[in-house]
């Protein structure tokens, strides 16, 4: 997994790329969580994520919950087909902010 962060006003966009599994979840959290803790609105661009398993889904849930707790928001952008399928399998499409 690789990533790139871009900033525009109070919105930080994290562009994730590659496969997100248990091996990279800590790395993903290390990038995303400080942005949420800084009360940024976070956009996760998942266009280039070809695979995500339950560990990756846990990062999405954790990020979403942390953002709610701190009064900010995480939005999933340009979700790839394979990631959307896993989100729907987990029945999270009504819970997470999908755009």
């Amino acid at each position: 997994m690789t990533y790139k962060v871009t900033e525009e006003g109070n919105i930080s966009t994290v562009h994730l790329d590659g496969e997100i599994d248990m091996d990279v979840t800590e790395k993903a959290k290390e990038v995303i969580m400080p942005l949420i803790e800084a009360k940024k609105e976070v956009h996760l661009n998942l266009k280039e994520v070809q695979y995500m398993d339950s560990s990756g889904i846990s990062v999405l849930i954790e990020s979403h919950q942390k953002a709610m707790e701190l009064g900010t928001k995480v939005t999933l952008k340009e979700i790839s087909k394979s990631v959307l399928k896993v989100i729907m399998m987990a029945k999270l499409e009504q819970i997470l902010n999908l755009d």
Partner: protein
Amino acid sequence: MEQTNIIDLDEKRDFEVNSSNLKHVRSFCREVFEKLNINQELKDELVLAIAEAAQNIVKHAYNNEQTEDKMEIKISVSDGHLEIGFFDKGRPVEKDKIRHRKIDDIKPGGLGTFFIQQIMDAVVFKEGEKPWINHLILSKNLNN
């Protein structure tokens, strides 16, 4: 006998038990499923189920601890019936404790087993024959 246009196969590979090998588990599965006349969506689901089961071995049978142990994954197809065997030498699985979280209980974790059950027709835990401790069998009829 049931007619099928899915070839029979029998392939196995072992992997060191650690999270950095999960990508190699997926590569092996993709390589094997490429030989089967099934749609891409099903191939992707099967790769996910296998990767989740392998992840559970790393996480639960070995508590994510460093080890030189290997797990073995065996993929067999016969008459359109897929059987995937997982063999490991970790802590014995306590079958009664295996359950996925309630799907409406939104919290991180506990989804892997839910995905496996969604994707596969049957999930069976057996005591492994020596030298193995655990033997998990996932199966699915590919003719449906």
